[in-house]
């Protein structure tokens, strides 16, 4: 060892680099091996960037470039922007979007943090079930909460008086609906950030006689900082780009996302839709920069020497945890419960007789079961392809030596889809993948393009979850691996993957359920033989067939809940087996 070390340094500048016949050849080989390794990893990440460019950047360019073109396709500079600003869209829609998304973010991140704290830092019973309840909002198609909110707080709503004369149709409805559906996204990121806590920090705090309050601010919050910022970034961007909730319950309250809907669906003005999409990217971009800034200061919280944190017995603290979970759990139960009730009612609100008529699946027109099977295939495809792609890329970015610039580019590409409304993504996919000169335009109209589009649509949150999980592992794992002469690949399969299995399962479930319920992008892409259940739900509701729509929606929810149950069992099994394994090192 000692004799090769000086040689290493001298060789970097020496022409001997190319002549392996020098006496220091083992060191040279070592250097080459390392360099080669680096190149392989960098090349793989470049490939990852290429894939994302193909899936996000290139399609997006085809649509967004229309923002500087006239309807006929001539370059007009910023004329469209000037036109949009002059019609006053900016004052109302832009600022409405900002404050609604901002307020929703504060509410959701606070609630999700309280819930995550209660789940990971107390010894409450049945936390597995509580986790299940808390993710219910993403298991249901977005139509269910929309129906529920109207039935709860609408003009005929049972809790209408709770709004003190205010209307659910408008900002209140948008914020409530947005909080409901974005909550699981925030919770998933925060749970990943807080699940692997280092018990030694808490021991130290106890030894120093720090109060629980002080421990919370000096240990718990800093440990979750990255998760908090990411969750905030994700929720803000999700709310500001979503047009589903504002369209259904927002009344005439103008936000940027519904403005896109008006321009593209109402008036077929793609170039103006593109203008609003570009404006929509701005706040998301700011959030992205803020996220990067905080992330740079993050270091691993779960090191090779860490001891998994096990909360001690403390009744008072557990009661506090229960208190923090209560409002969220009650809200979720109220919404889902109302939706289930609604699906049994004969004709709301004038005939409240309960019946099972709404569950006659035979009534479903437009290929009920066929659409369901398509959805299932699409969701499974999205899950498998997405999980592999997301996790492998995240691993390359976090756990292999990479040039800083490359990781920056990759991070940007993987978070970009978050800032793109589904409607815009779907249209972009038509322009790009249906182009006659695109060599792979054959996939247009098939189930495969639906899978690609859905993986892309939900890439960002999956990526953040994977990165958060990977960041928590000490870089020493790879260093130790190297000294044991184990390659990074081996460390990946023997240490990293098993430790990250819970997060991987989360990502898989996340992709599956979102693929089952998504509408906004795929509505432009399905073909005659790839209709989807989620789209059928929306169309049946639009046609006034609330009964079969509700039935199909419940079918989707049950499917997603089953997936969640399977995932929960797997997680339980993984937790148990890795806990034994982790404790073996104590």
């Amino acid at each position: 060892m000692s004799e090769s070390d000086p040689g290493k340094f001298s060789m970097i500048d020496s022409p001997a680099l190319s002549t392996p016949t020098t006496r220091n050849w083992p060191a040279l080989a070592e250097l080459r091996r390392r360099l080669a390794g680096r190149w392989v990893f960098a090349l793989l990440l470049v490939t990852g960037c290429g894939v994302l460019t193909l899936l996000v950047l290139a399609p997006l360019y085809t649509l967004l470039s229309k923002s500087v073109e006239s309807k006929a396709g001539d370059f007009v500079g910023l004329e469209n922007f000037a036109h949009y600003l002059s019609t006053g869209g900016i004052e109302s829609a832009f600022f409405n979007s900002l404050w609604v998304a901002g307020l929703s973010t504060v509410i959701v991140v606070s609630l999700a943090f309280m819930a995550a704290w209660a789940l990971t830092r107390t010894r409450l019973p049945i936390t597995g079930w509580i986790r299940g309840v808390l993710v219910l909002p993403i298991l249901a198609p977005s139509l269910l909460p929309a129906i529920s909110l109207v039935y709860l707080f609408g003009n005929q709503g049972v809790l209408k008086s709770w709004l003190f004369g205010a209307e659910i149709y408008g900002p209140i409805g948008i914020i409530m609906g947005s909080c409901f559906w974005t909550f699981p996204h925030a919770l998933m990121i925060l749970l990943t950030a807080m699940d692997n806590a280092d018990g030694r920090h808490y021991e130290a705090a106890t030894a120093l006689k720090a109060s629980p309050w002080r421990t919370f601010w000096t240990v718990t919050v800093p440990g979750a900082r990255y998760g908090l910022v990411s969750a905030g970034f994700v929720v803000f961007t999700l709310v500001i780009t979503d047009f589903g909730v504002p369209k259904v319950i927002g009344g005439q309250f103008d936000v940027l996302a519904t403005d896109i809907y008006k321009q593209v669906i109402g008036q077929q003005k793609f170039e103006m839709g593109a203008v609003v999409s570009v404006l929509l990217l701005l706040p998301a971009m700011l959030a992205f920069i803020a996220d990067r800034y905080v992330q740079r200061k993050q270091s691993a919280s779960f090191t090779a020497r860490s001891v998994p944190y096990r909360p001690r017995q403390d009744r008072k603290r557990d009661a506090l945890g229960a208190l923090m979970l209560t409002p969220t759990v009650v809200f979720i139960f109220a919404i889902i419960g109302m939706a289930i009730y609604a699906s049994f009612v004969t004709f709301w609100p004038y005939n409240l007789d309960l019946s099972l008529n709404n569950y006659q699946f035979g009534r479903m027109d437009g290929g009920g079961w066929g659409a369901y099977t398509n959805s299932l295939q699409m969701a499974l495809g999205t899950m498998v392809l997405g999980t592999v792609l997301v996790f492998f890329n995240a691993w390359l970015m976090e756990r292999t030596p990479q040039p800083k610039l490359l990781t920056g580019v990759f991070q940007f590409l993987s978070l970009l889809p978050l800032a793109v409304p589904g409607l815009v993504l779907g249209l972009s996919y038509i322009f790009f993948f249906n182009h006659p000169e695109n060599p792979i335009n054959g996939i247009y109209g098939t189930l495969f393009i639906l899978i690609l589009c859905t993986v892309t649509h939900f890439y960002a949150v999956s990526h953040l979850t994977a990165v958060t999980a990977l960041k928590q592992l000490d870089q020493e794992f790879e260093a130790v691996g190297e000294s044991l002469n184990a390659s990074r690949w081996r460390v990946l399969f023997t240490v990293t993957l098993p430790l990250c299995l819970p997060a991987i399962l989360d990502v898989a479930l996340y992709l599956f359920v979102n693929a089952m319920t998504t509408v906004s992008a795929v509505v432009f892409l399905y073909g005659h033989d790839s209709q989807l259940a989620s789209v059928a739900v929306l169309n049946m509701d639009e046609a006034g067939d609330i009964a079969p729509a509700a039935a199909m929606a419940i079918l989707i929810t049950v499917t997603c809940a089953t997936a969640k149950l399977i995932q929960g069992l797997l997680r339980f099994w993984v937790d148990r087996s890795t806990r034994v394994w982790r404790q073996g090192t104590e």
Partner: protein
Amino acid sequence: MKHLKKALALTTLAVAMNANAQTELTVYTAVEAEDLQKYAERFNEDHPDIKINWVRDSTGVVTARLLAEKQNSQADVVWGLAGTSLLLLKNEGMLVPYAPEGLEKLSPKFRDRDETPSWVGMDAWMAAICVNTIEAEKNNLPMPSSWDDLTKPVYQGHVVMPNPNSSGTGFLDVSAWLQMMGDDKGWEFMDGLHQNISRYTHSGSKPCKMAASGETTIGVSFAFRGARLKEQGAPLELVFPEEGLGWEVEATAIVDGTDKMEAAQTLVDWSITRKAMEMYNEGYAIVGMPGVAQPVKYFPENADDLIIDNDFGWAAGNREAILAEWARRYDGKSEAK
């Protein structure tokens, strides 16, 4: 066993041959989903050799999709899309003009004005006001009978209508009012109506659905949706204002770039036969061939007299200006009441 195998093989062969003989048409449509199967079945009774593969969505989505696919059109035929949308596609050069058999039997309102029309009409959907009788009684509201009634102060906060910037139905109303009343009177009427509107929706069927569930008392929507909801048990009264009704033609066209021209033409031919018209009449009071339509439940018997003489060319030409003016007057900024 051997027989079974032979039979199986024969069946497979027959199916395979059948599949070979069948032409598959990709047909884009905005027709209600529950009607699609019926439409295809009736068509197949006469033309079993052509299989229809439907792609269905709401009018706005289908139109946006067709336009976005312009460079490499996927649809062979559009069967059941709003005339305004087809006009847009025609101006983009995306339709193949074709004079189907029996064209002369169509009412002149129900075809593209060109000698060889780019689209031919099926039926008309028309505006209607959905009034919730239970809520009207609760709020002591008289039954309106005209558009003008809706501007009376008694209805303040009880009316919902679609935003014309998002919904074709909304634009149909606005364009009809301007055509019936003239520019000045039309905007004056809408100013008055605006005072009573509790909100504008993004979808044309939503106001009627809201009236059906008591979320509002009066919803400005279209007749087909109102009739459907009434059938499902909604406490609705459909009002067809005496001044006249906006309406829109639903039509059929061949998409440029199709490589199945013969089958596409067969479908368009069939779409204006008497048999097809009788089929449309099951859900719509007004169809493209004069003398065919029978009264439809919940629709007015004099539907033909009620609809205005809609100038689609005028509506399309002035659409952008009308929408901009509408947005300037009523959109978004009215939120702070």
